């Protein structure tokens, strides 16, 4: 299925990078996530990890709706990479955020109100004009079959994304 992948590439807006992933569906992500929420990014802060070698960015998201699982009104999402002073670090395939961005996130709880995005960039959709769009420019997909009736992580109407997240056991 190269055509949809090519379409994803055209739509992908993030910088290219270096992760390789097997095919994954929205339904699969939803089953594995602790929570799926729709919300808006409020702020971001990058800092060094305790090991002194890795940078993480902490993204505060105001949750507008919980589609699956449980999440508080305000959550922190930890993502790899970021910039601290004159040093930047990119862990490829990591989701990127911007202030004020409306998003749907597939989340795995780390501790308390802190989550990570499940499947790195696969688990983040940008919502704009009724459309939910993953930003997958940094992920290389292998070729493979997906379960019948499920839909690959790709651009779709936000209503369909919600239906697929809520409608799956």
């Amino acid at each position, binding site marked *: 299925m*190269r*055509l949809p*992948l*090519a*379409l994803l*590439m*055209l739509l992908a*807006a*993030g*910088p*290219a*990078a*270096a*992760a*390789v*992933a*097997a095919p*994954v569906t929205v339904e699969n992500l939803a089953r594995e996530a602790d929570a799926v929420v729709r919300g808006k990014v409020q702020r971001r802060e990058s800092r060094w*990890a*305790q*090991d*002194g*070698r*890795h940078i*993480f960015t902490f993204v505060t998201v105001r949750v507008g709706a919980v589609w699956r699982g449980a999440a508080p009104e305000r959550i922190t999402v*930890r*993502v*790899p*990479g970021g*910039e601290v002073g*004159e*040093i*930047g*670090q*990119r*862990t*490829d*395939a*990591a989701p*990127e*955020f*911007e*202030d004020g961005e409306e998003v749907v996130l597939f989340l*795995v709880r*780390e*501790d308390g109100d802190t989550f*990570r*995005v*499940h*499947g*790195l960039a696969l*688990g983040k959709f940008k919502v704009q004009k009724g459309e939910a769009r993953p930003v997958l*420019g*940094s*992920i*290389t*997909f*292998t*070729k*493979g079959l997906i379960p019948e009736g499920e839909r690959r992580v790709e651009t779709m109407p936000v209503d369909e994304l919600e239906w697929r997240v809520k409608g799956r056991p």
Partner: protein
Amino acid sequence: MSPGLWRAAIAAAAVLAVSGVAYVRTTAGNACLYWGTRQVSYLVNDFSVNGAQEVCGPTIDAAAVQAVVQASFDAWTAAVPDGQASCTDLQLLNAGLTTSTHTGYDHQNIVVWRAGPCTSLAPAGDPCLASHTCGDTYNCWDTSAPNHGDSKIIALTTVTYSTRTGQIFDADMELNAANAPLGTGLPTSAGFYFTCGPTGNVCTTLGQTACVYMDVQNTVTHEAGHFIGFAHNPDPLSTMYPTAPIGDTSKRLLAVEDKQGVCDVYPIGKPPLTCGTNSSGCGCGTTGAEGVLGLAAVLLAFGRRRPRAGTTP
């Protein structure tokens, strides 16, 4: 660096070389990423010590795998555009095997096969499981860590760079290797079977030889492109094309635009081709904005990847 800047940068980062061949560079704001030195060393993790059991067959031979990794990096440094003389003096130097499994900003560039999921390899109760720092300590794929995400990710490269100039300081490659025993079938959730075999039949069981599954040279050659500052290329013929079917070996050899890219960015006897700095606001690859979009649009009509002549021995 805001994602908006990243996006703007990538849109402007497709560079049409003098020859008209397009390649795409990774960018940070206005700056393209590049190595400031022409001699970049990398170490290959000795997985015979650190645990990955099923890389290139049932017999552990780290030196043989190291040679395949070197061939992957060498594809870039030996780039010679068709009909031209050698054009780059970039050297990616194999510094040998290491027992280190550390990634991140430590001025040590490594290629490391993670030996299995951290939930299996780290002792229960180890504080690293809660802090998601087991990966380097136990050489494992931390499925709960944000930089690994989940077991569907096959390989990751982390690049550390100057936010002002884009100069790369450090780059590391992690590959999510299988740790399941022989004869259990190919893994779907506990890593991937990396093979060094010839082209041809796709492996059907873990540890099988004389077949190809997740080809090491195919994967590392692609990743090495990122390692030196190149981004995905929408041309299906490019080594940097972001699709790699199981059994794919076509990326072992560079396409013409890949060769042109390394020759342009790291030309013999000349400084690296930079795009400006974030303090100066200089534009990056200003000739290429239409190039990348045009190529992607053409790609929509492709449907299938055309075979690249001479890519499979």
